[in-house]
């Protein structure tokens, strides 16, 4: 098979790196060669964060350039837009309908784009907008938003559900296993 590329992006502090760790474990358990790349350093200071996960029979590069990613999972709306140049024409984008103002917007210097979804559609019609915060609140634990988003991603991938569930069980705190599996199910079945 060809090498597939998934990009998970968002804002430092949103749990991007944990999510891409789970994704990498899942792909390894599914028998693929996996490479994962991320940029550290500024991530805790509210900057944008991107993690690239690539898998296939044999993966060479850990990163991609323009028009090369198959899917983008954006934990924040603006970050979906920022990384869109990396997406293949008509690749898939899953956008969490969550707005986190960058500093130039917070200080009133620049405007947060109101038409993000329309702009995304200029590159691909394969997009989906979800609301992880709402789902997590309904499940009574705001921390499960990440796992819900991985459920949304998993639905678009060809990996057995049991493999995902096994990794999630190992990665999340013992007492939160049930609620995380529920969050994953909502994303996967939704």
């Amino acid at each position, binding site marked *: 098979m060809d090498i597939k590329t998934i990009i998970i992006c968002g804002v430092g502090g949103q749990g991007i790196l944990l999510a891409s760790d789970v994704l990498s474990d899942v792909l390894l358990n599914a028998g693929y060669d996996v490479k994962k790349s991320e940029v550290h350093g500024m991530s805790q200071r509210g900057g944008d964060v991107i993690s690239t996960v690539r898998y296939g029979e044999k993966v060479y590069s850990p990163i991609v350039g*323009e028009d090369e990613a198959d899917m983008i999972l954006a934990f924040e709306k603006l970050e979906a837009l920022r990384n869109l140049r990396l997406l293949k024409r008509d690749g898939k984008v899953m956008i969490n309908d969550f707005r986190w103002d960058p500093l130039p917007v917070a200080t009133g210097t620049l405007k947060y784009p109101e038409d993000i979804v329309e702009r995304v559609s200029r590159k691909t019609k394969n997009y989906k907008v979800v609301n992880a915060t709402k789902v997590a609140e309904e499940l009574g634990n705001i921390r499960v938003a990440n796992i819900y988003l991985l459920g949304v991603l998993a639905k678009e991938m060809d990996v057995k559900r049991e493999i995902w569930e096994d990794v999630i069980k190992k990665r999340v705190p013992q007492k939160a296993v049930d609620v995380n599996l529920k969050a994953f199910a909502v994303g996967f079945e939704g």
Partner: protein
Amino acid sequence: MRKLLSGNEAIARGAWEGGVHFGAAYPGTPSTEILENLAKYEEVLTEWSTNEKVALEVALGATFGGARALVAQKHVGLNVAADPLFSSSYIGVTGGLVIVTADDPGMHSSQNEQDNRHYARAAKLAMFEPSDSHEAKEFTRIAFDLSEEYDTPVLIRMTTRTSHSKSLVELGDRKEVEVKGYQKDFHKRNLLPANARVRHVFVEERMKKLEEFSNNFEYNRIEWGNREIGIIASGVAYQYAKEAMPDASFLKISFSYPLPFKKIEEFIKGVKKVIVVEENDPIMETEIKAKFPGVEIHGKDMIPMINELNPRIVKKALGVVGESEKVDYGEIPPRPPALCPGCPHTGIFYILNQLKVTVTGDIGCYTLGALPPLNAMDTCVDMGASISNAHGLDMALRVIKGEKKRIVGIIGDSTFFHSGITSLIDLVYNKGVSTVIILDNRITAMTGHQDNPGSGKTLKGEPTKEIDIEKIVRASGVEDVITIDPFDLKLAKKVINDAIHKEEPSVIIAKRPCALLYRKIKWKPLKVVPDKCIGCKICIRLGCPAISFRDNKAVIEPFLCTSCQLCKDVCPIDGAIVPDDSMDGLMIRDLWDLEKELKKSKEEK
């Protein structure tokens, strides 16, 4: 067993498997996790050194005693360590010595894009260039044996993408190596000119032998494919090229100095046209062209020299794909990193911005004080430069040009230990009068919270002597020294203002722990009372990520606010910013008390 490891984890593992006894480093992105991971192995003694030069000298000392040692630093860190690096080449080793340089093409978090493969040539040292985590582990392990066999320190050149990407590694066992012990060898280790002249002859001989090693090294590998194009590549650039043109012939360079010219000759003869794919400078290209004049060899005429590469850029350069289709995404506001909510540095930069002084800056989280809306740092050069830059600028403006004093140097605690101390002594010695602010947040924060001489703990987590910055400053000859709590804005403003108007050197230590040291705490946030907020935007000027401005009012994001209360202090309206009593939690301002801390440290003495 196979495991997904980052390149940095793999280096630590490779060192452990290679029988390393000792590791030293100063943290720096993208190299930091190498020592953090090495410290997890019980068999290895590790330390955070005060700077990279010290780290290399300490490691070299360990090898004098016959221990195997590893040093790691970011690319610019090797500049700091360059002096002992060049000497170590002549001295060679007793226990194996491996020196990792983690370069940062693309400058994700660095001040330049220097290519440290030049150091192998300049200092005449062996160099490996891994292209993934497995190679990083293997080459590190192999490097220790090579180092002892050829009596040479060995460089391993990582880059951000090999250090911070994860790939599968086949794990091995540790090879137990005995610490040989010390035997005096004056002619080898004392580089008096008479000895050094003899050692230089040895170095040149060694390089010839290392070229033979390079020719025979199995990871310097020819992969025959289509003979029309032959690609020579090293490091992660090999992976990009392999993906761009999988069917071409490849010469993968893994041991990149000295280059394997016999293998290169064989490869060049076997293909029609050669393209060297390397990130940043044309180093292999230049050497290969010089060795084989008249052969069609391409390189930087096709591959960009500036910024990091990726598979797409290489594909475009090789003509595999055309230009990307242009899509108009509209304006996308940038998301620059910012000082955290509750950061003890924020208030100081807010004051410096108000005072309109000239600020020479330094390297750390606090460099973010240069960005809007704080805009309070004029220069950022290298570790420790804040103080020496301030002094030089003061000499030019005040002493030579006759202007009034107006320079403030600003530096972090770890950076002060790294190389601010010598600059401060220079300033006092040479009759400088600049004001220096030391932002002491009790940790090396930017690289992810490493301990330092001021934090009272070692890399292994053991308690140790806590070095007193104020005492060092006083001993350096500065008489006007004061330690303040940076959350006390009124006092801070008065102290800084007084200091810059006095024609004598002064040091202000702004002491309070990094907000991220309290990461697990639940905060009771502040909130804006909309009816009282007059929309003056003064609080916005703090640049706090928890505060935004919407519908002409300030808004505080409750999940980000730590209740440092700076916004409340700068707000001109009483009662416009108040604690949010609907939420339970602590307030970061209450968790630390300078007076108590000073009393405690006095009692301990």
